[in-house]
């Protein structure tokens, strides 16, 4: 009775609410944030703002600002400003010298020698030396550090054994030849190493302060970094404030004085704060608001390809998908990727026929059906589906698992309905909260079809190829192919870059034949950027250093 009366009360109010909505939207008109009274950049269009403060929406609160224990994009965004690795990236994503001014590779590609700049300083004025990097690398792989991401360093000599606790951290293949020369020994030639050296697991840490403060060293007032900025305030769930590091070697060229990172999980909240001019850059964009944004803030929309694959996986360790490549192909072919990418996601995602996103210098594997029409694909899907022993009268019943999110739901519903319509498959959608989903997916006991996404850790096809290797614990399909494993392993030790690329392409081809996963689309990064924020360029890793940005008068 109570529930009914509440319903009635609310129903009676709907017209009032509706009028309220109309008036509040009607009074608004076009967003006035892009029609400011003062022209951006003053009269010349290039005048700098007096107040060089940048305010960035940054997803969730980082777990820690200890570069070796941190994980996730929000933490990485802040750490790039606080620390500097041997290499950094230019605004368009090219790997350029960071603390290292140049580097050499040995004949066999297994030894790298880095020459460090002598003017690099910690934020307390101490010089940054090769020993700091050695300390950083060793701390990163030391299992006592409890790093979530140290396995990324496994190409380095002895790293894997140290992480397993078999060898001491001192055995790591990173040596200081002198104060400003660092040698990294690798198990296998790792052409992507320079790109890896701007990942936070490779950042140096200030030895004296780490030893003095222990696990508390990354707190404001204690954190000593070598990046362009230094930590000034950290108010949990409110903001992280960085100010310029006056000792930074390139500080003379830095323009922005202060940068605020705001943890904002709720994208609608973020959009409103952006529209109220409280943020200069958003961390993401709410999908449902995209049409409105395109209409009203189109010029501020920054969408560009992102190094990530959105896919669905089959659990190939259990029926019905175990040893049933034809059935897996049928399900993959029946998905109209253009519709998913353009109509369902709709931010500019790229339909994916292969597994590895477009990467410069990598030849993507293309399945034969990529240039078929969708009706051809559907016909082939139906043929394979029938061949696998299913039909309208005897439909396949499956469960599709995804983690709770409006966007994943829309895409899963679209795919399930394509399967239903074209093949008659009875797909049951099951969503689970993130942590539960991770556990279910990892156990591979009940999953049949699951949603997944993979963002490359470094800009190289290998970051994707290794994921489906049978030894990778992230291979939640349970896919085991000796042919695939052999090709990926061969690529890892190949010195000839052309041959290496060919091997990786061949591996991808094998994967697409076996189809343990269904690539759906390649990600795009999505942000809103105020017109006065300059110096920002799109890049596939979506890495942006605050020191490259500046703010125009507005």
């Amino acid at each position, binding site marked *: 009775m109570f529930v009914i009366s509440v319903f009635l009360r609310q129903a009676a109010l709907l017209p009032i609410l509706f009028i309220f909505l109309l008036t509040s939207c009607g009074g608004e008109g076009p967003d006035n944030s892009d029609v400011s009274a003062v022209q951006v950049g003053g009269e010349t269009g290039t005048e700098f703002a007096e107040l060089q403060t940048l305010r960035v929406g940054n997803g969730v609160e980082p777990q820690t600002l200890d570069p070796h224990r941190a994980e996730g994009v929000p933490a990485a965004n802040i750490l790039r400003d606080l620390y500097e690795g041997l290499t950094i990236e230019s605004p368009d994503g090219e790997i350029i010298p960071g603390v290292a001014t140049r580097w050499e590779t040995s004949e066999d590609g297994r030894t790298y020698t880095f020459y460090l700049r002598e003017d690099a300083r910690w934020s307390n004025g101490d010089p940054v030396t090769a020993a700091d990097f050695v300390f950083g690398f060793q701390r990163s792989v030391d299992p006592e550090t409890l790093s979530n991401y140290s396995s990324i360093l496994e190409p380095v000599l002895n790293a894997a054994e140290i992480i397993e606790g078999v060898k001491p951290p001192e055995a790591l293949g990173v040596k200081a030849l002198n104060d400003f020369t660092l040698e990294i020994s690798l198990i296998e030639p790792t052409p992507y190493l320079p790109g890896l050296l701007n990942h936070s697991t490779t950042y140096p840490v200030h030895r004296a302060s780490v030893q003095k403060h222990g696990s508390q060293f990354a707190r404001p007032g204690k954190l000593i970094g070598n990046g362009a900025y230094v930590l000034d305030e950290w108010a949990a769930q409110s903001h992280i404030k960085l100010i310029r590091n006056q000792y930074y070697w390139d500080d003379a060229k830095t323009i922005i004085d202060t940068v605020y990172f705001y943890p904002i999980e709720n994208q609608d909240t973020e959009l*409103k704060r952006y529209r109220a001019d409280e943020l200069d850059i958003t961390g993401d964009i709410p999908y449902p608001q995209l049409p409105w944004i395109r209409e009203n803030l189109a010029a501020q929309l920054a969408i560009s390809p992102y190094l990530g694959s959105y896919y669905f996986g089959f659990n190939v360790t259990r029926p019905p998908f175990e040893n049933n490549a034809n059935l897996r192909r049928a399900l993959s072919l029946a998905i109209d990727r253009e519709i998913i990418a353009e109509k369902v996601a709709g931010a500019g995602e790229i339909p994916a026929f292969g597994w590895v996103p477009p990467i410069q210098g990598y030849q993507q594997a293309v399945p034969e059906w990529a240039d078929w029409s969708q009706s051809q694909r559907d016909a082939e899907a139906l043929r394979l589906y029938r061949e696998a022993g299913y039909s309208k009268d005897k439909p396949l019943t499956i469960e599709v698992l995804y983690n709770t999110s409006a966007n994943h739901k829309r895409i899963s519903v679209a795919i399930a309905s394509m399967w239903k319509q074209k093949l008659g498959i009875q797909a049951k959608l099951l969503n689970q909260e993130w942590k539960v989903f*991770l556990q279910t997916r990892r156990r591979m006991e009940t999953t049949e079809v699951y949603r997944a996404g993979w963002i490359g850790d470094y800009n190289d096809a290998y970051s994707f190829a290794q994921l489906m290797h049978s030894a990778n614990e992230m291979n939640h399909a349970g896919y085991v192919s000796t042919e695939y494993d052999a090709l990926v392993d061969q690529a890892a030790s190949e010195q000839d870059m052309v041959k290496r690329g060919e091997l990786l392409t061949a591996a991808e081809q094998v994967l697409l034949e076996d189809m343990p996963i269904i690539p759906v689309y390649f990600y795009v990064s999505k942000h809103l950027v105020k017109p006065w924020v300059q110096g920002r360029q799109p890049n596939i890793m979506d890495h942006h250093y605050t020191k490259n940005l500046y703010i125009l008068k507005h």
Partner: protein
Amino acid sequence: MLKFFVHRLLSAIPTLFILIGLAFCLIRVAPGGPFDGEKQLPPEIEANLRAAYHLDEPLYQQFGRYMLNLAQGDFGPSFQYRDFTVTELIGSGFPVSLQLGALAMILAVFFGVLAGSVAALRQNSATDYSVMATAMIGISVPNFVMAPLLILFFAVTLRWLPAGGLEGWRNLILPVVCLALPQIAYIARLTRGSMIEVLRSPFIRTARAQGLSMRRILFLHLLKPSLLPVISYLGPATAAVITGSVVIEQIFGLPGLGRFFVQGALNRDYTLVMGVVVFYGTLIIAFNFIVDVIYAWLDPRVRL
């Protein structure tokens, strides 16, 4: 009186103990662990992490350790925010929630009593109907509808107030109003109802017959008895507003304790969730205790 006091105090202890025990078990029963992430941890690291947070010990031992630390006022380190202790996080989040809740309650009592009195004194007039209709809207429109509308209007369109975050007192205006609106409405209805009843009672008639001015009657005779139901409502309402600002904190991006609690639950941050449960549990039990004691003092029948 003293016996009652001691009795109530002693009975609060097992309540708290059961609360802690339940929360301790429930958070661990929830599927997915604090160290599950997109990237899977190497087994060695995971084992070290579990050892560092004592998750490798048997459950009773973990509980014993937790209770022992708790007795010393130590909530332990946060699993998720690795550089913070739970005590620090509660210390930074609670003042925000408290401020929000307290301001909202002050606002609610002031405007609620005002609106309710006006409506009662002009019973069945146009004023009465419009006040009560507005109150109905206040009760019925949920926070998560009201808050975005207010943000859109006052922050995005008019630009009078900030849309979110916490940088100064201006950031508190919208969230406080959002939190207070349903309470204003509720208090207004309570006040009106009880005031109408009191207005009909013989002593008011007597006061009127004696020729006292309406203002005198209102402040000296009417207001006090009319407010009794409001006062008994205030205890639970204050606790509810302080602990229940989760949605508002989320929408306005405020660093309150409610937001820590929700994030903690999602992240399976065992210690943070436990810490907030214990803290709020103690708070609510204390509130109830105080109310009980005041009641007992006011009304001797309760003491029996």
